[in-house]
């Protein structure tokens, strides 16, 4: 069970009450608390208290450079964030547009490759699996440098390959300028991130292997072709896996920061298309060391992320298939 399934199935578990427990059970329970106390302390110190403090900060005028001049200003930062700072909405839009482009591509590629690597007709399957997974071990910083070289409009291999295979004049200043054109930048960022689908490939692969083969045999007897079997058996059967990848992908995209930061220092080039929400947050919180406004931006991100996750989990019961529930 993935941790995502754990959340969806949590309601069914029974309840344990302290006063109903025997002495021995209480002794055991105390040991349980001792073991998990490490996490509880960490949770309080690095999650709960900072969350509350973050909200408190958002009500303060708190510049790190002037620690003596902290002042309570109420919801002033929130007003500025929601109604004045246009970059908040720009960066929010940028983040979602990019997610809408890159998530489907990433999920399609990882599922497609998993299907290929699961094929019984593929010779040398283990070797192919290793080699397709390998690039996801490459540190992101190295893949950003390598891919931005490959995507270089003049000396990069991608444009040379396109020109060589299709004849389209891709090379040069008037060619395909992946990293400079607002129309191409999201595709370029998708390329840069594509090696990261390695984990999703493996999870999809494990999902594919757990589909009972008798379903396929029955479908074959009924005359269903390959696409029909994919659509009516494979996809529904591995929908929990797809859901898991979707949740992780979306959570990761909300935090999308490293690539735009390294490519151009987080200045939004070209035309603010890479001003992602995290970039805007980082610029304010750590670039300008504005703790108050930064905390407000962080809280907005938390709220938006929560809403999306809840919506996603709420939608799960309409399209994610759980075997246990249907029994």
């Amino acid at each position, binding site marked *: *069970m993935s941790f995502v399934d754990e*959340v969806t199935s*949590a309601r069914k*578990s029974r309840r*344990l009450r302290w006063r109903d427990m025997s002495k021995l*059970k209480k002794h*055991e*329970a*105390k*040991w*349980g608390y*001792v*073991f*998990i106390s490490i*996490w509880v*302390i*960490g*949770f309080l110190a*690095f*999650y709960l208290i*900072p*969350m509350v403090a*973050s909200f408190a*900060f958002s009500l303060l005028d708190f510049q790190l450079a002037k620690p003596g001049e902290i002042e309570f200003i109420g919801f002033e930062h929130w007003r500025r964030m929601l109604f004045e700072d246009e970059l908040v909405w720009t960066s929010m839009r940028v983040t979602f547009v990019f997610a809408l482009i890159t998530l489907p591509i990433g999920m399609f590629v990882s599922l497609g490759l998993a299907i290929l690597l699961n*094929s019984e*007709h*593929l010779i040398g399957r283990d070797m*192919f699996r*290793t*080699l*397709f997974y390998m*690039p996801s*071990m*490459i*540190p992101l*910083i*190295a*893949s950003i*440098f*390598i891919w931005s*070289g490959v995507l270089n409009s003049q*000396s990069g291999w991608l444009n*040379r390959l396109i020109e060589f295979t299709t004849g389209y004049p891709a090379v*040069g200043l008037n060619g395909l300028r992946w990293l400079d054109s607002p129309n191409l930048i999201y595709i370029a960022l998708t390329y840069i991130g594509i090696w990261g689908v390695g*984990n999703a490939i*493996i*999870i999809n692969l*494990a*999902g594919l292997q757990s589909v009972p083969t008798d379903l396929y045999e029955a479908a074959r007897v009924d005359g269903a072709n390959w696409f029909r079997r994919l659509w009516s058996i494979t996809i529904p059967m591995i929908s929990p*896996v797809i859901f898991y990848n979707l949740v992780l992908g979306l*959570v990761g995209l*909300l*935090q999308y*920061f490293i690539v735009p930061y390294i490519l151009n220092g987080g200045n939004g080039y070209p035309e603010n298309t890479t001003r992602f929400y995290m970039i805007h947050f980082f610029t304010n919180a750590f670039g300008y060391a504005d*703790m108050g406004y930064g905390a407000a931006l*962080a*809280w907005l*991100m*938390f709220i938006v*992320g929560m809403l999306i996750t809840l919506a996603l989990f709420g939608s799960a019961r309409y399209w994610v298939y759980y075997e246990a529930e249907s029994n």
Partner: protein
Amino acid sequence: MATLLSEQKPEVLERVNANTAARKQKALLIKFGITSLAVLLLSLWVMPLFYGIVTSLKTKEQISDPKASILPAAAITVEFEGKEYDVYSVPFEDGTVRELALYKKGRQASTFIDPNNLSAEPIEWEGIWRQLEQARTVSPTWSNYPEAWNTVKFGRMLWNTFFYATVGMIGAVSSAAIVAYGFSRFDFPFKNVLFIILISTIILPPQVTSVPTYAFWVSLDMVPSWWPLIIPMFFSNAYNVFFLRQFFLTIPREMEEAAKIDGAGPLRTFWSVILPQSGPALVAISLFHFFFAWNDFFGPLIYLTGARDQVPITVGLTFFNGIYASQPQLIQAASIMTLIIPLAIFFFAQRYFVQGIVITGNK
């Protein structure tokens, strides 16, 4: 209805044979098609890696010249009488092509010398030398690597990264094992609620809590330093706890019961029964943590930016990228140096990885 094949009439048998032959042929064709598709996709998939390797071995000029070959090739030159002469591929009327050095340039005809036999008689050649192709040879510029290593102080950054990864790994794995043991083997009130809270923190972006945490470490005067990055690791992380709990749940309880009867307390059971049986899982999360640390960026960026000597590779290379944008060969060399250790570890330990990812992502 089941008649043996051998009892069939000869013509039926023949048809069956022909059928299996055709089917075999078809299967072979499918095998060939699928495998070629995989080869094609794989070459596109790893093409950038080759770009990185090849580019890291070029000179700056070889990269910017759009007509230069894909491989790091340099023009061949010959020294003769104290002067350098370029070597060209010169076609002759009898169909042969010789590699000759251009000695004297002329509009309609030029004089060449044989680079292998400089003292021989010069060769007259009719034609326009500008249309000739320069002879090239593969000549990797290995010196890019030491140059990149020295300019970025790569050794220092490597040590920082390694230190961060190792110390953090010890903290993350040991704390996660203890917490996971608590969640997998003990029953206590609010366990489920606490567990749901724990895994919800996987979805919480770490940046959300970063502002007050940062202010806290600044107030303790610990910025810039490694402490804010390492201390939280010793309080376990949701992903690792979840992973180890899943694994502990699969360990049969008989041995623990036996240990209990022998009078072993929970600590002793954890140390001598659970941990020895969890080798592969512990290796897997150690590796996960190692790779996480190798990639970690946001934390080191905010906590170490003021201390250039302490930054890990990720953050250090960002500065480097800004300064050396016009030296792509050095940037590629640094990238290759960065990825070589993780890739080597991966090839030695891939079995643990794949199992690990499957445990967290699936049933």
